[in-house]
């Protein structure tokens, strides 16, 4: 379930710590950040996961990079073999 989108913090409000403006591909939205506030203060350029106007989670660049690394290693050798065998993933 649930449409939640990654957005980057572009503005914070020192006098309103429960709010932040996030941006997704040039679209900005003010969201409530009460659920992601902890000992580590939020900073502009942090990435948050947004759902119905609330930030649900901070996005971890480290985990994302690690995941990309794992994905890059998947099936490399086999992909080459598959293409030779004629699996036509490139058909559009």
């Amino acid at each position, binding site marked *: *379930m*649930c*449409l*939640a*989108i*990654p957005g*980057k913090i572009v503005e914070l409000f020192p006098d309103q710590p429960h709010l932040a403006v996030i941006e*997704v*591909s040039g679209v900005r939205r003010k969201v*409530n950040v*009460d*659920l*992601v*506030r*902890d000992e580590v203060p939020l900073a502009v350029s942090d*990435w948050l*996961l947004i*759902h*119905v*106007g*609330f930030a*649900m*989670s901070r*996005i*971890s*660049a480290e*985990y*994302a990079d*690690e*995941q*990309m690394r*794992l*994905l*890059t290693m*998947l*099936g*490399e050798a*086999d*992909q080459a073999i*598959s293409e030779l065998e004629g*699996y036509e*993933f490139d058909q559009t």
Partner: protein
Amino acid sequence: MKYVDEFRDAQLIRQAAAEIRKLARPDKHFRLMEVCGGHTHAIYRFALADLLPGNIELVHGPGCPVCVLPMGRVDDGLSLASDPKVILTVFGDMMRVPGRTGTPLEHKARGADIRMVYSPLDALKLARENPDREVVFFAIGFETTAPSTALTLRQARALGLRNFSVFCNHVTIIPAIRAILDSPGMRIDAFIGPGHVSTVIGCRPYEFITTRYGKPLVTSGFEPLDVLQSIVMILRQLDSGIARVENQYARVVPWEGNIPALKALAEVFELRPYFEWRGLGFISQSALRLNDEYSEWDAEKRFHVPGVRVTDPKAAQCGEVLKGVLKPHQCKLFGRECTPEKPVGALMVSSEGACAAFHNYAVRTGATTAASTGS
């Protein structure tokens, strides 16, 4: 779009698909259930089944909060809108869900003040701007959305806002999964676990599935690479005969869940002793209502709701599709009496309902499906 585009990389997708083909031993047949409606939607929108070998069958689970809402609760919500003082606020997903006398959109066309909101905070804002009206928020959703409702109620209380209330239909995911596991004749090998619900509840609540039922569960993101990677992780577990909870969506899902969110839930809600789920019947301790501290903002206490039970039309097989016993196109009404334009059941209305997703996205040649949705 960062954190989106890289997980839709065509080359990496092909590689992941190749890995899946390698891992899915041709002599075996795998039945994997994706619990979340969001995953069902992603699978169809990105046509992921086209990339899977024929012996991997994706079974759609009940994690669609609009789909599992009984028609009677829709009617209850609509009855609130018949009070001229009330502004009923609903999410876009709810606008076309049929009640007995029409959908919220149809009721709106007949003059009911029903407005679409994008956040419960919009409803709160409406209440502040319209002090002479009663604003009711039709809350739906699993644990992903419930904390938002909770925080909104906290604000309402802090503001002393008297003209705002919530008609609460939040449900919890674990009892639904347990109901699937306990269904007789149910054969699921592993679960593609909820992604965004898990940002709130974490991964621990799923451990009983692995220990007591011996099925792997991988909490998964929603981009194509997320789902494919989760399937890789599942297949590896099945191959080694282990059953564990793994977190594929670690960039967003904390193992222990979101503490502020869980605290907010505990502060505002309590579990209903039981709640009716479309297709699954009455399940105990599976839904939320406002607790005594917040009873003043409970629409069911402030207003009278009819509370009538409405059974689905006999011919509609929503329940079986919800449990994954039937595929959408196997329901007798699918594509004929029941279409996204004239839906009989909510699975055809909600964009993440299995039937709507199938109807809208799946390429059908004759009566069969493309690739491996297990027709």
